[in-house]
């Protein structure tokens, strides 16, 4: 069953904040030189900023005071020139930084997406789409924020902090010492604030993810919502989720913003001690005033570092959620020495196969199932809903691996076959006949991108989909939406899509359930065409679809109850015969 619903919080893993930051920094290694350049530019720009007050002082105190017009104009021109240079440095720095940080986002996002595709179906089945999207689209931007902060705030400010500290101690060690006493207060305060807020940043991310999931789900199922008049109910639930977001955000910022008090208080303590020392040591006013200029420079990097440290909490919480995807081990692994299978005959063997879902290991969905299907045979799987028919198919297509027992194709265990080869030879038409946005043609070619128009047409004719496609406004170029196609038409397209992919082993899982009888008769011919010459597995409830199978397996309670041809099973007078009577016993 599902791990998670749209409105419940995802589980939080125990976190290692430092490891997360280091991991983010790891992505910067490849941009080492650019980063060094950015930092150099920042230091150069700051050096220029330091010159500005000196220039102004010179202009007023020296040039104007001595009534030197030329000198004044020269100083102003130098000032303008430096301002231009500063802006030039700034532009270059921003450009490099934008390229680096966005490249990292680009890289991580595609890594995460690629990794996602490797995860087993169980991952997807157990959580709402909106929550996965929240991580790979939204949470990833926190990586960018973190990188930018680390490069443009952390490193330059540490540099300044050290520089100004050195200058202060050279100028007046006593005063510097007094100011420094305030630092532990500052550091301790920031640390406590950070620690207190972090949990709420994590919570905030979870709640935001719930907003995503709930909105996505409601809008996906809007017809159900509207036809059950559930708009109000949904709105109320949503309002609750939205207010939880605000609440967790408020809980985080009520702590984080407290950093303002910490900064000002430690600044106050610094000044307190400075003046106290000044009076006690009978320092001159000049010395004191000169020193206060340094103090304001001293607090600037500290203030920025403190703010950065605090935003880090939110960013780490976001980055963790992205890394969690990257760290989820795919449970379905390709064998270390995959056997490549350029072609497949189509002998399928299940021996003593049992299966349970990973999160419910006690509930056996399949129990000791064994059967054989030889090349070209059509095997029909029959049984009540939930009996395990789809599970057999999921195992055969290797969407899941069995808990015990082996499945073999042409005598090779499924788990050792190269996955791309396996999937190429097995064509599955699933229950939900999923179509992608795009044209009808795009969808038909999904399994064979280079299919020619003739191939596409003949596949559609064989399936009986050609006539309705031509009746749509733009024929094969009609865009597929929920509204343009009926459920039955979607199934026809999915069948044609499977036929075009031309697999050696064919699986049809309730492939024709939504198709009317007249069309189904047409489709039957198509299916006969599809199944001939390949091993086929057909799950269907209509006995008319099943009657012609080479063999029928009756599945119930996770195991095979009966096996045989239509007439054999009828003669047996068991479950199948009863089912048959149910349909035809008018």
């Amino acid at each position, binding site marked *: *069953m*599902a791990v*998670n619903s749209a409105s419940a919080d995802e589980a939080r893993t125990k976190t290692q904040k430092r490891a997360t930051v280091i991991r983010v920094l790891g992505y910067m290694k490849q941009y080492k030189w650019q980063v060094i350049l950015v930092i150099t530019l920042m230091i150069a720009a700051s050096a220029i900023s330091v010159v500005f007050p000196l220039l102004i002082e010179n202009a*007023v105190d020296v040039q*104007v005071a001595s009534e030197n*017009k030329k000198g004044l104009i020269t100083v102003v021109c130098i000032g303008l020139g430096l*301002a231009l240079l*500063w802006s*030039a440095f700034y532009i270059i720095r*921003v*450009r490099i*930084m*934008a*390229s680096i940080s*966005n490249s990292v986002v*680009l890289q991580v996002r*595609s890594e995460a997406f690629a990794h996602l*595709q490797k995860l087993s*179906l169980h991952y*997807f*089945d157990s959580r709402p789409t*909106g929550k996965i*999207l929240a991580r*790979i*689209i939204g949470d990833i931007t926190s990586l960018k924020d973190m990188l930018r902060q680390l490069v443009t705030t952390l490193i330059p400010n540490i540099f300044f902090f050290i520089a100004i500290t050195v200058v202060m101690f050279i100028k007046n060690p006593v005063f510097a010492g007094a100011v420094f006493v305030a630092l532990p207060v500052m550091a301790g305060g920031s640390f406590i604030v950070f620690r207190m807020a972090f949990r709420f940043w994590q919570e905030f991310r979870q709640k935001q993810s719930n907003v995503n999931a709930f909105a996505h789900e409601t809008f*996906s199922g809007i017809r*159900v919502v509207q036809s*059950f*008049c559930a*708009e109000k109910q*949904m*709105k109320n639930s949503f309002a609750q989720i939205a*207010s939880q977001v*605000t609440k967790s955000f408020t809980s985080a*910022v009520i702590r984080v*913003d407290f950093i303002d*008090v*910490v900064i*000002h208080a430690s600044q*106050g*303590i610094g000044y*307190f001690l400075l*003046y106290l020392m000044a*009076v006690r040591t009978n320092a001159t006013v000049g010395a004191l*005033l000169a020193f206060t200029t340094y103090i304001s420079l001293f607090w600037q990097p500290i203030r920025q570092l403190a703010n950065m440290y605090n935003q880090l909490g939110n960013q780490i919480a976001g980055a963790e959620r992205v890394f969690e995807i990257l760290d989820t081990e795919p449970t379905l692994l390709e064998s270390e020495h995959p056997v490549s299978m350029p072609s497949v005959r189509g002998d399928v063997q299940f021996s003593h196969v049992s299966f349970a879902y990973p999160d419910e290991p006690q509930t056996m969905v399949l129990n000791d199932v064994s059967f054989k299907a030889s090349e070209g045979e059509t095997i029909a799987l029959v049984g009540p*809903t*939930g009996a395990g*028919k*789809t599970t057999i198919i999921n195992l055969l*297509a290797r969407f899941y691996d069995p808990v015990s027992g082996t499945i073999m194709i042409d005598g090779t265990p499924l788990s050792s076959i190269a996955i791309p080869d396996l999937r190429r030879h097995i064509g599955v038409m699933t229950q*939900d006949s999923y179509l992608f*946005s795009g044209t009808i043609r795009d969808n038909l070619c999904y399994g064979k*991108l280079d299919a020619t128009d003739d191939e596409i047409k003949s596949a559609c004719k064989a399936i009986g989909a050609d006539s309705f496609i031509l009746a749509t406004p733009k024929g094969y170029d009609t865009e597929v939406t929920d509204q343009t196609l009926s*459920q039955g*038409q979607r199934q026809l397209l999915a069948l044609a899509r499977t036929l075009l992919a031309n697999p050696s082993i064919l699986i049809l899982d*309730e492939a024709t359930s939504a198709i*009317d009888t007249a069309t189904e008769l047409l489709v039957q011919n198509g299916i006969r065409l599809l199944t001939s010459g390949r091993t086929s597995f057909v799950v269907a409830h209509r006995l*008319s679809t099943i009657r012609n199978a080479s063999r029928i397996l009756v599945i119930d309670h996770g195991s095979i109850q009966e096996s045989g041809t239509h007439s054999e099973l009828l003669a047996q007078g068991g479950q199948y015969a009863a089912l048959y009577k149910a*349909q035809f016993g*008018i």
Partner: protein
Amino acid sequence: MKRFMVYAARHKGLYLIAFLMLFGGIALDAVIPSFVRKLVDDVMIGQKTGELMTLLLSMLGCFVLRGVTDYLQEFSSDKVGWKVAEDARVDLFEHIEGEDQTFFRENTPGELMSRVKRDTESVGTTFGFIGIFMIQIIIHVIVMLACLARLSLPMALVCIVLMPFIAVLGYKGEKKGDALYGDISEETATMNKTAGEAISGIRTVKAFNKEEHEKKRFEKRNKHFFDLSVRLEWMFGNCDAGVSFLGRAMLFLSILAGGLLVISKKMSLGTLASSVEYVNNLVWPMMEIGWILNEISSAMASSKKIDNIFKRKSRLTEGTIDSVADDELVFSHVGLNLEDTMILDDISFTVSSGKTLGIMGATGSGKSTITNLALRFLDPTSGTILLGGRPSTDYTFHALRSAFSIVTQDIFLFSDTAMNNIKIGNPDMSDQIAMHAAASAKADGFITHLEEGYSTVIGEKGVGLSGGQKQRLCIARALAKNAPILILDDSTSALDMETEREIQHELHALEHKQSTIIVAHRISAVRRADEIIYLDRGRIVERGTHQSLMAMHGRYYETFVAQYSKEDADGSK
């Protein structure tokens, strides 16, 4: 934006705190230097050491207070921003819920999710922290300019002359940013859609071995997003650099002007020195303009997207009558023409109270469209639909849709507990009623076997359940709604024969109590109906009871023969 003003007005208290604290902070900033002056003048020079501690402690107190004003200002502006975002979210969500099918055809869930989450957030922050900070800066600039003008009008004029250039640069940056943010917002939505499809359709992706293909599709979006983001940041980099340069030019040029005045003896050196302090204080706000503009552009782009949704009036207008008197449903010469395609043509039928209508026909012949029209997911282009003797457009959507219980063809379940799925639309329903409905739909058995029974959380769209189990849950929730008219739209296709028969048996028991419309492919589902219509390409080609249709030897008869056999057909007449 106007809409957001309304939300903002709801939280006056928080704004009041933020502004009070803002002014408190300004006042404290003015007070703290006076302590320093006293310390220097009285204690250090005047040697009144007795006052030292009082002065120092008062100063420390002022610093702490300054921290508190900053804290409260920042906290209340952070909070108010999210409050505004929350209000917008809930309103937008509710508005979207009321849209019609065309809207949902134009906007995918992924896009709408982006609007509801990201766009509201971006406008919200502008109404919180950013907006308040911007006002703070504006106040600051005005005060500084006024002080400067009092000391030296020519220097103030230099600044005032340069400010329009800054404004133009800023305005241009904002416009470009607005457009780029619009593109980014679009791209975010497209990226959500692309990734969303690959996630929702993961079975198909894996079955066709198409992981690489999906990766490439996503990569294209990802790359485009990268390009846009970089372009945006570069653009704002230029804008920022330009504004910074102009700000500094303002400083140096006003010093030049002031300096020349001093040299020509029109101003004192002392006045120049203090004027420079004020100009200095005008420069730093210019450095902040860049990122504020960036945020505002983003908010403007988002607010446009949100406004577009609100502006679009649902094409279906609601009536005012809020209850349905009688459950007779009449379709009279109903036609539907969409994009020049005749979907339905001249459909007429009457379902009187307690009667059953069966609808058969080929895939795509318009069967489901009839149910969509009945519930007003769209309106017919000709003819009228009457419910209880009145045009269905007279009713409120709530009243109209309350008259129907529907089991749709596409199975959609919510990622919630089995119980809540059954109770959808009526959370106050008693567990007993819900369980009774589940029993009638033969869903009771498998639900109780789930790990946590009715409290088991079912995956999105019912993943984890078999097709038939999902369908039974859908039937259960329709039965639980217990509306006067029940619509079953091909709702037993995924069921095995035995279960289908049992459910049909239950449904027969409801007959005569409830009007029923059954859309089906199987004769067994419709044969007992009071009237059966057979559709072909949007038209009714045959109609009658099972007996009369069999006697006609037409399409219905052929279907029967295909499903059973000729002998059965002739025998059953």
